[in-house]
């Protein structure tokens, strides 16, 4: 019997964030994962998008950020929410946006959180990481930083994140390294254009004493518009999987890639869709969604401004209650790989217009592609919110910003009404962005050898 999992001193003494702790339970710790599926007293990984304001306009932004929402939580409301996180013993939050550092009270809120036993990892494009800020961050024990980068070269990165964004990110990385900040994260979304650069990303991160984090491109937010064009091809998915099999222990993934488990062995992590179970998202106006990739009314559980606050939403919302019940395999029930991939990512299916109890659009057996073809001309659901600086009418389903055409097969119904039959059942696993969804090399403790889940 293993009584303790995760957190083992493990093989390497590298700094670990919660994500890594989770990732280190990589093995089938069956019963523990089942408990997670039924929900916890509080999330393990909570993402808090502090603002929709952003000085960049990345084409795949999950939250369609750009403009600040005037209903944004005030400083006092943010502090009250942090107090609630402390009471619920949410040890760690992932702060994002938008670009969170553009909030004038950002540093004040980070300090307030860490003073109240809520550790912070924040995601940034690096534009506000001055030398002074880097030094301050390096001296804080409870703050971790994640720099977003989507190409190992300026051309690949800037095509997605905007002109000059590669230099901005690398400058920030240099300042953090110079200040002595070891082990900050470099976070990459895997796309068709950068899958060939995985070794390059790893070298870049290593050069700055950082840790690489690789996550899946989701068709959420503005990402829904570019997904057809940017998501890795089937061959690239295999390449990505093979690379992760080799490097998975040194690279964080937020449990992003459990849909690839059908290729063979599970990647390190919980291999669990954490949506509403171990993970959730609080957006800038206090809305609580099941996961960071599901900013849509369909996955909205409540708002922290409600009478019961965040606690009540987490523990009693109808949506989360439903997500914590046993889920049906649906159309995937007869597939021999279902136990490995669990039907893939709920958000990826939703935003590509596929039934939630069927295959993931990137199903490694090709069932997702078949489902997309069967879906035909009906358009996928559009994101409910858009804070883009320059909102664009969506044409068909995908297409690069600025591309007039839509090359997606079957995308004839441009501008057609959203007519997608959503099934009530949700998949067994959601994805998580969490840093915590899984952990790694083995459980600690009596009878090691059982562990193996993988979320965040």
């Amino acid at each position, binding site marked *: *019997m*293993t*009584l*303790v*999992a*995760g*957190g*083992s*001193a493990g093989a390497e*003494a*590298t*700094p*670990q*964030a*919660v994500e890594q*702790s*989770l990732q280190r*339970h990589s093995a089938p710790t069956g*019963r*523990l994962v089942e*408990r997670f599926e*039924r929900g*916890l*007293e*509080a999330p*393990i990984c909570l993402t808090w998008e502090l603002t929709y304001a952003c000085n960049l306009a990345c084409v795949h932004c999950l939250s369609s950020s750009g403009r600040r929402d005037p209903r944004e939580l005030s400083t006092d409301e943010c502090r009250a929410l942090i107090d609630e996180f402390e009471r619920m*013993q949410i*040890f*760690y939050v992932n702060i994002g946006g938008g670009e969170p550092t553009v909030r004038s009270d950002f540093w004040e809120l980070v300090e307030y959180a860490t003073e109240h*036993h809520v*550790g912070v990892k924040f995601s940034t494009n690096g534009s506000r990481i001055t030398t002074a800020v880097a030094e301050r*961050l*390096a*001296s*804080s*024990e*409870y*703050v*971790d930083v994640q720099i977003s980068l989507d190409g190992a070269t300026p051309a690949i990165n800037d095509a997605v994140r905007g002109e000059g964004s590669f230099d901005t990110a690398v400058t920030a990385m240099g300042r953090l390294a110079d200040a002595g*900040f*070891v*082990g*900050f994260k470099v976070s990459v979304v895997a796309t068709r254009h950068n899958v060939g650069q995985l070794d390059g990303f790893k070298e870049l991160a290593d050069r700055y004493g950082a840790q690489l984090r690789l996550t899946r491109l989701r068709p959420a937010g503005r990402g829904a518009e570019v997904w057809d064009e940017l998501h890795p091809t089937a061959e690239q998915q295999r390449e990505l999987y093979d690379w992760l099999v080799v490097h998975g222990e040194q690279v964080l993934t937020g449990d992003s890639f459990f849909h690839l488990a059908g290729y063979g062995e599970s990647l390190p992590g919980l291999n669990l869709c954490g949506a509403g179970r171990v993970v959730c998202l609080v957006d800038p106006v206090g809305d609580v969604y099941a996961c960071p990739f599901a900013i849509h009314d369909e996955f909205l559980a409540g708002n922290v401004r409600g009478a019961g606050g965040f606690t009540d939403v987490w523990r009693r919302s109808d949506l989360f209650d439903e997500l914590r019940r046993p889920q049906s395999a649906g159309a995937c029930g007869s597939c021999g790989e279902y136990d490995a991939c669990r039907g893939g990512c709920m958000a990826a299916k939703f935003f590509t217009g596929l039934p939630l109890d069927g295959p993931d659009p990137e199903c490694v057996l090709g069932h997702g592609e078949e489902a997309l073809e069967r879906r035909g001309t009906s358009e996928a659901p559009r994101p409910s919110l858009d804070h883009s600086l320059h909102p664009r009418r969506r044409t068909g389903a995908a297409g690069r910003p600025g591309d007039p055409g839509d090359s997606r097969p079957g995308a004839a119904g441009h501008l057609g009404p959203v007519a997608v039959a959503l099934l009530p059942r949700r998949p067994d696993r959601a994805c998580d962005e969490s840093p*915590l969804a899984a*952990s790694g090399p083995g459980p*600690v*403790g*009596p*009878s090691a050898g059982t562990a193996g889940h993988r979320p965040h």
Partner: protein
Amino acid sequence: MPPTPPVAGSPAFDATRAWALHPQVSLRPESFGALAYHFGTRRLSFLKSRTLLAVVESLADQPSGYEACRAAGVAPTELEAYTRALAALADSGMICERAAS
């Protein structure tokens, strides 16, 4: 700032000595047991039984690891498993030795 890695090659766990939860560790009870989070190392551990949670919580009041197990109701046949669990927690810095009272 990056968390401090635990000291490599931690000394063997000795259940006859007095132990306590590390001051930077918080325990969050859950139906399956508890989550333990170390703010210094940012490590997260899962205690997979409520009894183990009770053992860990009683460490500070008991003269030894063994006594903490007994006080929490660990049966003699389970003592080895619980001792190994404590050793794992010691190894990851979640619990630490204290001066015997």
